[in-house]
């Protein structure tokens, strides 16, 4: 898994609430059998017309905005459990998603791929949007070790929560399978009275 420690980057603002995973990656693009290449269809129907012409007013098509941090309204990633949503965001070059609220499954999927979901307060989210509104190149610094997000221009900062285990996975690039496999004997012991156990 991809490692993450610290990042300073401009942001791509998407001030819309309840962005569901069908918007992030529509179902018709879920037919691939590998994890790569979903980025080109990220936010497909917001980003392109039916004839595949880019929609000029969508933020990802606006050259003013760039960076590895996606900032979105509350309840980001609701709906389907498709991990393709996290893959698409990552494949499009993002390493961090910031919102004031994340859907559970999306958050877990992101963490399992080294894409860092950061939940900030409504107030701080508003501050970020204001800073980017004022200056599109306005940057954020995300420091995972110290669990802080800082608006570079103003120095305004907020700390964020992350499960200590997940934090160490991100910093070291470990995944859950490595962790559980190391305890396989415990699982087998747990299963002893289980007649369903495979042959």
């Amino acid at each position: 898994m991809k490692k993450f420690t610290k990042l300073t980057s401009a942001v791509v603002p998407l001030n819309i609430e309840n962005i569901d995973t069908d918007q992030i990656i529509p179902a018709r693009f879920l037919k691939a059998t590998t994890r790569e290449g979903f980025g080109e269809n990220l936010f497909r129907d917001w980003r392109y017309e039916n004839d595949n012409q880019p929609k000029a007013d969508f933020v990802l098509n606006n050259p003013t905005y760039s960076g590895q941090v996606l900032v979105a309204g509350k309840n980001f990633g609701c709906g389907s459990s498709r991990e393709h949503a996290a893959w698409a965001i990552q494949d499009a070059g993002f390493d961090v998603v910031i919102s004031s609220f994340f859907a559970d499954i999306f958050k877990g999927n992101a963490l399992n791929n080294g894409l860092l979901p950061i939940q900030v307060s409504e107030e701080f989210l508003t501050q970020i949007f204001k800073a980017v509104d004022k200056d599109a190149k306005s940057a954020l610094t995300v420091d995972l070790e110290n669990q802080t997000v800082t608006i570079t221009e103003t120095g305004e900062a907020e700390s964020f929560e992350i499960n200590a285990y997940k934090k160490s996975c991100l910093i070291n690039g470990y995944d859950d399978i490595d962790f559980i496999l190391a305890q396989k004997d415990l699982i087998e012991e747990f299963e002893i009275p289980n007649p369903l156990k495979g042959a």
Partner: protein
Amino acid sequence: MLTQPTGSHATPSPSGRAGVGQTLVEKIWDAHVVKSEEGFPDILYIDTHLIHEVTSPQAFDGLRKRGLPVFRPKQTVATADHNVPTLDQLLPIKEELSRYQVDMLTKNCAEFGIELYGLGHPFQGIVHVIGPELGITLPGKTMVCGDSHTSTHGAFGAIAFGIGTSQVEQVFATQCLLQQKPKTMKIEVNGELGKGVGAKDIILYIIAQISAAGGTGYFIEYAGSAIEALSMEARMTICNMSIEMGARGGLIAPDQTTFDYIKGREFAPAGEEWDKALAYWKTLYSDADAKFDNVLTFDAADIAPMITYGTNPGMGMGIQENIPATQAQPEKEKLSYQKALDYMGFDDDASLIGKPVDYVFIGSCTNSRIEDLREVADFVKDKHKAENVIAWIVPGSKQVEQQAINEGLDKIFEAAGFQLREPGCSACLGMNEDKIPAGKYCVSTSNRNFEGRQGQNSRTLLASPLTAAAAAVTGVITDVRELLTPEPPKGGTERYQ
């Protein structure tokens, strides 16, 4: 067949609170904790892993890269549902990528020794329909699937939740998941439902009350007299949509209704196993002094037939109500709210009654079971769909389809101008050919009204099977109560009062 908790189930995990009664979620969770360690998520044992063609290929690939087998293939069950056509299922799938994905599932299941109920198998169907009907879904189990509507299985008093593909790989490799114990919420619905109001209306009402994010972080236990009075299939409709308020899981304590439903099903325990299982299942309820992190109570009498007007399942209202005013929304949410109404082509403060409809879709893991089909057949018998409407009925499984034919429902649908198709997820998410065209309105018994969910730029109005059938017959959004006969018809369901 796992009918009782395994291993160290009697030992409460460190997160269990001494001296306080346990919720149903806590009882099942604690019985499945392989290891609980401060600062780490619990290692949770998974009894049953359901898989389908869309969210599994990358997980199988991951196993190959790691050189691992599926740890417990006999606890894994596969079906093809998301991509499959709903006409001429026995012919090769026309769409190349869909065919490839379904073929991959077949190959992967053969390679890793997993039972597959694929196209042509009499058990094939939507993964959340076949689990219960085959007796695979049982009280007290932990169940996962790479699909957010896995919460459906909670209707039996199981901990069931959707997972991402990395977690599918985790369960393949270890039969376990690393999971934080969820918070618990109890939602009680008490009293009697009114005429024309069913399970779908209950859950759409709850989501409209608490919003599309109101359940995030919780597992929800549904309780109260209105829930207890529901059939198993109606309970599945309720638990299915838990995720639409952000809750990964929703469950209902098993009772006689549950036990009667399970008994005799294909893979249900039988004989001595049944007796042992039943004795255990009867211990599965929240203790009277159990503490929930949140409790909400609703009155069934307040619930009308529901319909959604926006682009998330929380944007729902009683069918006679007007769409809430944009001005009444919190300042920060006005933009997103107006964007949703613009997408739908609706004005705020307007009624939907009388609004023309183009499609009616009766199907999905929410409402495609035999009771749904019977209810629609009862209603449309001796009626005909309106000319402007295309009406699809997509059964949840081959078994549901066969049962519908055995009962002659296919003839009723045909006479009413409804097309009975073959099983699959179909127009719920439009991964196969069953798409709603751009700009068209579809009254759908599915679970999501997101932008483009049923096809690019399609517009979805979520409703119950009865409300959908009423729209098909009149061609416009209709309060189904006005079309119901005052006396219970012969063979009708208890919902006609």
